[in-house]
C-alpha cells in the first residue's frame, strides 16, 4: 500500500458547530483537504469528495442517497452506542466511524479506511454489473453458436471456436460479437 494522500480533496462535515468539530476541521485541513461544515442537507448535485456526517443527530434526507448508492466515501461521527444510530450510519453508506469525543489520532485512519471501503465497494459493484450483463447475454451467445453451426454445417464446438476467434480478432467480447452477428442475420433475412 502506498502512502494515502488527501491533498486537494473537498470534505463536507454535516454537523452542528462545536469545539470538537472545529478541531476535526483543523485536522482535516492539516491533511490537505478543503473543508466545509454545515448542519443542512447536502444537495444532490453538490461536488464533494468525502462526507463526514453526524450519526447521532442525522436524519433521513440529510444525505441525498441511500447506502450502497453513496457516490463518495462517508465517515460517521458517532458518540452513541444505540443500534438504531449505527444502523443509520450504515444506511448512509458509512465506511468508517470516528468516535466522539473526537481523538485527533482517529481522523487520518478513518479517512483511509472510508476511502478503501468505498473503492472496494465500487470495484465489487462494477464486477457484479459486468458479470450480470454477461449472464443476460448468454442466450444470445447460444443462438449465435447455433446459427454458425447451421450456416457452416459444423458442430457446436467448432462454431463456438469460430465465434471466439472472431471476438479476439475484433477485440470485442464474445457477447458483443454474438449480438452483432445475430443483428446482421436479422437484417439480411
Amino acid at each position, binding site marked *: 500500500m502506498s502512502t494515502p494522500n488527501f491533498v486537494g480533496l473537498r470534505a463536507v462535515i454535516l454537523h452542528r458547530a462545536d469545539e470538537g468539530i472545529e478541531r476535526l476541521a483543523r485536522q482535516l485541513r*492539516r491533511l490537505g483537504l478543503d473543508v466545509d461544515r454545515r448542519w443542512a442537507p447536502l444537495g444532490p448535485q453538490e461536488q464533494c469528495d468525502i462526507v463526514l456526517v453526524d450519526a447521532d443527530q442525522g436524519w433521513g434526507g440529510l444525505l441525498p442517497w441511500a447506502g450502497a448508492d453513496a457516490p463518495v466515501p462517508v465517515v460517521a461521527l458517532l458518540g452513541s452506542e444505540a443500534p438504531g444510530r449505527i444502523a443509520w450510519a450504515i444506511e448512509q453508506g458509512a465506511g468508517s466511524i470516528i468516535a466522539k469525543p473526537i481523538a485527533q489520532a482517529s481522523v487520518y485512519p478513518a479517512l483511509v479506511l472510508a476511502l478503501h471501503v468505498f473503492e472496494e465497494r465500487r470495484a465489487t459493484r462494477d464486477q457484479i454489473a459486468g458479470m450480470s450483463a454477461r449472464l443476460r447475454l448468454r442466450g444470445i451467445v447460444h443462438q449465435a453458436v447455433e446459427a454458425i453451426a447451421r450456416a457452416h454445417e459444423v458442430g457446436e464446438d467448432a462454431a463456438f471456436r469460430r465465434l471466439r476467434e472472431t471476438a479476439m480478432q475484433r477485440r470485442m467480447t464474445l457477447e458483443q460479437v454474438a449480438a452483432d452477428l445475430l443483428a446482421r442475420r436479422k437484417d439480411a433475412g
Partner: protein
Amino acid sequence: MDAPLRIGILYSTTGAYGAFGRESRDGAELAAEELRREGVPVELAIADPEGEAGRYVSLARELLRDKGCRHIVGTALSATRKDVAPLIEKHDGLLWYICPYEGFEANENIIYTGPCPNQHLIPLFDHLLPLYGKRAFLLGANYVWGWEMNRLARDLLLEAGGSVVGERFLPIEETEIGRLVAEIRAQRPSFILNNLIGPSSYAFLAAMSALAAEDPAFRPEVCPVVSCDLTECELGEIAPGAAVGQLSAASYFDSLDTPENRAFRALAAARFGADRRFSTFFSGAYTAVRLCAEAIVAAGTDEPAEVRRAVTGKVHQTVQGPMRIDPRTHHAALPFHLGRINAEGGFDVIVSRPPIAADPYLLGARGAAAHLRVVS
C-alpha cells in the same frame, strides 16, 4: 508571573533506553538552572518509568492531575508517545516531544521539536542513493518506528528506481543477529538502513565491523550502515571503534561548529564536564524546556492553547539555530545534518542543510501525485 512554572519531565533513565532519558533529563535540568538564574522560576517535576512501557501513562496522569503540570517534556519511543497522547488530549495538556520520529501525526496537544521523515529520511536518501547505490537492506525494530521508517524507505527506493534486497525486523532488545548478518553478506546491498534501536543496534554495528574485517565490501566507505537515531550518548555502548565510519542523520550534533553551539557547549561543559559529548536528546530537551518556559512567560499563563499560540509562528534562537514552529502542524523546522562516527567517539558532520519545514503527512514532499492514492 510569580508562581513557579511547573514542567513535567517524563523519561526513563534506566532500562534499555536509559541513555536517551539520562541525556534528556540532564538537558532539561541545565535549561531549568539557567532559566532560574535569569529570574524565571521554573520547577521540574521529574517522573521516571524506569524502562517500563506500562508506567508512562500512569506517571503522565500523575503529572497532569496531581502535580499541577500542564506541560510535559518527555517520552522517547513513539510507542510511549502514542500511549500518553490521548491522556494529554483529555487533560488538555501539552506534550513537548523532542525525538526523531516516523511522522504521520500532528496532534494539537503536542509540540514536535524532533525531526520527521521529510527532515531526516528523505534528505538522507537524497544524499545516499547517488553516492552508494539504490540496493538497500532495511532493518527495523519491531514496533511503529521500524515498521513505518522501512515502509517509507521502500516507497522512496521504488520511486527512485531502486530496490529493497532484504528487510528484517528484530524484537526490541533482541541481540541475536548472526543470521541477519549472514543474509546481508549474501545479498550485498549498497547500504543498510538501520532502524534498530538500543542494544539490537549496538550488537548489529559490532557484527558489521567484524564482517568488514573479513570482507572489505562491507567497509563503511563502501556499504555504510545508516541510522536516523544513533547519537553521541550511545556510542559508548558499542564495542570500541566498531562503529567508526558509519553514518547517522540528526538535527543536532555535539561537534557542530556554529556560534550557537560553541556557546551552548561551554555552558553544558561547565555543568557536566568538558569530556562529555552532548547528543540531540540533551540539546533537544534543553531547547524544549527553554521554549516552553519562555512561551509560558510570554503568554502570561500556562494554559496550553495560549502557550501554543505564543510558541508557534515565530522564529526562536536555539542551539540548533533559528527555529520556527509551524502553527498548523506544531512541528519545528529543523536543519538536516549527516554525521560520520569518528575514532574519538563523536561525529564528524559531513553534510548540512538549512532548516526544512516539517511535512509530517508528506503532503508535498514526494512528487506531484497530489491526488488520491489509496490502496492498490
